[in-house]
């Protein structure tokens, strides 16, 4: 594991999986999980670029920030999902289309 490409490859795989999950899942929680995957793909990129660029800690710091951000985001998102469930008795994202004309 000495080359950057393998990291990036895994990160890309993870990103694609995340996007795929976000786009295909109907379950809001699953969508949320997809978003987590995307964030983590970004994290891997940060850390990998940081490692292969003289080990300054910028990437790491950013990775930590993203993790915190992901946690906050998950909290807000879950709150939204709970509210959604309360209002619609469902967490199917397709049904949350009331604003559509």
């Amino acid at each position, binding site marked *: 594991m000495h080359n950057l490409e393998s990291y990036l490859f895994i990160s890309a795989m993870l990103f694609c999986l995340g*996007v795929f999950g*976000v*786009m*295909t*899942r109907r379950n809001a929680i699953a*969508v949320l999980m997809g978003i987590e995957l995307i964030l983590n793909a970004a994290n891997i990129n940060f850390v990998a670029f940081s490692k292969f660029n003289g080990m300054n800690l910028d990437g790491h710091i950013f990775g930590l920030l993203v993790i915190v951000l992901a946690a906050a985001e998950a909290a807000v998102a879950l709150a939204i999902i709970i509210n959604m469930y309360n209002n619609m008795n469902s967490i199917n*994202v*397709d049904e949350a*289309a*009331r*604003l*559509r*004309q």
Partner: protein
Amino acid sequence: MDNTMITLPLLILFLPLISFVILIFFGKKLPRQGDWVAVGSIVTTFFFALYLFFQMLLEYDPNFSHGASFSWIDLDAFKIDQGILIDNLTIIMLLIVALISSCTHIFSLKYMEGDIRYNRYYAYLGLFTFSMNGIVLADNLISMYISWELVGVSSYLLIGHWFEKDSAADASIKAFLTNRVGDIGFFIGIMLLYSAVGSFAFGPIFDSIATGNTITGLTLTLAGLGIFLGAAGKSSQFPLHIWLPDAMEGPTPVSALMHAATMVAAGVYMSVRLFPIFTPDALLVIAYIGGITAILASLIAITQNDIKKVLAYSTVSQLGYMILAVGTGVYTAAFFHLLTHAMFKANLFYCSGSVIHSMHHALHKIHDEKTDPQDMRNMGGFKEKMPVTYWSMLISTLAIAGVPLFSGFLSKDAILAGTLGFAQHHPEHFLLPLFGFCAAAITAFYMFRLIFMTFHGKPKMQNIFKDIHESPKEMTGPIVLLATLSFFIFYTLPKFNPISTKESWFTQLVEAKDSVVPGGMTAGEISGYAHHAHYLAMGLSIVAATIGILLAVLMYYKNIVSPKKISERFGFLYDWSLNKFYFDENYNRFLYQPLLKLSDTISWLDWEFYDKYFINGFGRATNLLSKLSGKFDYDGIDQGLVDGLGRITDAGGKNLRKIQTGRLQNYLLYVVAGILVIIIIQAF
């Protein structure tokens, strides 16, 4: 002096108009419906006219003439002056009009008492007098024409005063329309003169014709005849005489005013005023028309039974005399006859009015509404009951019959002498004096027939006879005055000469002027002929009058000759006369009906052809075009372009709306796809 000669005529002209305006607007609100306004103003004008008359006698100048005018319309190329001309002719005519009009106003006070349109009647009398004075005072053809038309209008209003009666309404329309025919001729004549001379005023027209190079020959004859046609219409000459007898539908005082001094006198006055412009050819036509009118009307008058109809035809006949005199050149005699005729004819009408008034009251008392109060067959023996009316009417009848010592003798004699003199000089026109003398005899006959039928013999209707009474003073006053004026003495002053007017004020103050037409006879020549024939004419006219009167006495007073037998012997002649020579019927058959048919045809063409095919065709074509245009607009522009744009936008919106699913994941898909596209593009 000069000033009064202008202001007094103007006052005489406008006072009746002021009275008309006051009465027509405020008449109903004034006490006694304002008749005192009318009577007051007209009597004032009479005194003014009398003053002018005496002023004229004091001056004693045949060339006395005053005038004033102002520019009415001035368009550089086209200029009309309005003005008045006062000479001896004008002053005498003003006096006639004012006198007869005053008498009519006073007479009407009782005659028209209680009439439903009392104030309007007096208002129209004022308008009538104003218009007539306008004709008399005019110094140019346009002023005269304006007043001429006003006389037509006011006569229409007065004849149709009792317009509830169909016959009165018809008569007023007939009078107006017949006059219009004449007026068109008058207008053509005026325009012919104007186009040649460039002026409407009498003076310049005479001067210009005298030069002989502006308007001559046939054109001048036609202009003269056109103008004469106007006179024929107003003065009721053959063939336009048909309106006058019908005009008797108006109130009797109006008949007196209209048929003695104002309307019918207007035509004669105008012919006299414009005498100098008539060419010898035109004068010949005028003379024959006058002669024919005189004899024709007198023949009709013989058989009429309506007292006013007899007087109407006698008026037509006397007017024919005047026109005959104008035609033969002795136009001062025509004017003289106009003067004397105004007095005795007005009086005859007043007397007939007095009789009718009395009859009317008597019939009203026994509630007889069917009997005609104007029919002489219902009268008879009124002499004792109405002495004033009888004697006055007798005097006027003697005057109109041409009996010596009365005014009519003098004027008729002057006319007949002129006619005879003319025929002696032009033997081929022997018919003219023949017409004159025959008419004189017939006039004497039918007038005495009227007197005998009305005042002598046994009363025909005993049941009303006891109620016949003399008329009140308002009516007998004018009658006596005018009867007095039928004596010769007033016309021969300052000489007392019952057979000749040679040295009278009239002959000396109204001098015949030469015709201005080059080659026309001079006044000296004409009066020479007339003078030459004077005694012969006088003898013949006395004979004619005697024959007429004797016949009347035999047939209607002594009853020696039965009128019935004579009428049976000459059945068709009697019928002709009784039916007025079938003028109305023939006009109807040969003039009105073809005219109506022509109008019908034109109307048919207009409706059935022009309207149906042309106008409606245009309509249909326009309609079709509009439909096409509408279709294009609606289907093409509206539906295609305007709505099409809308539909495209609508369809676009509807289709694009499908993209907006409201599903986040779809949006995300688009974003990813977009990014991928951008990346791929970037990569290459």
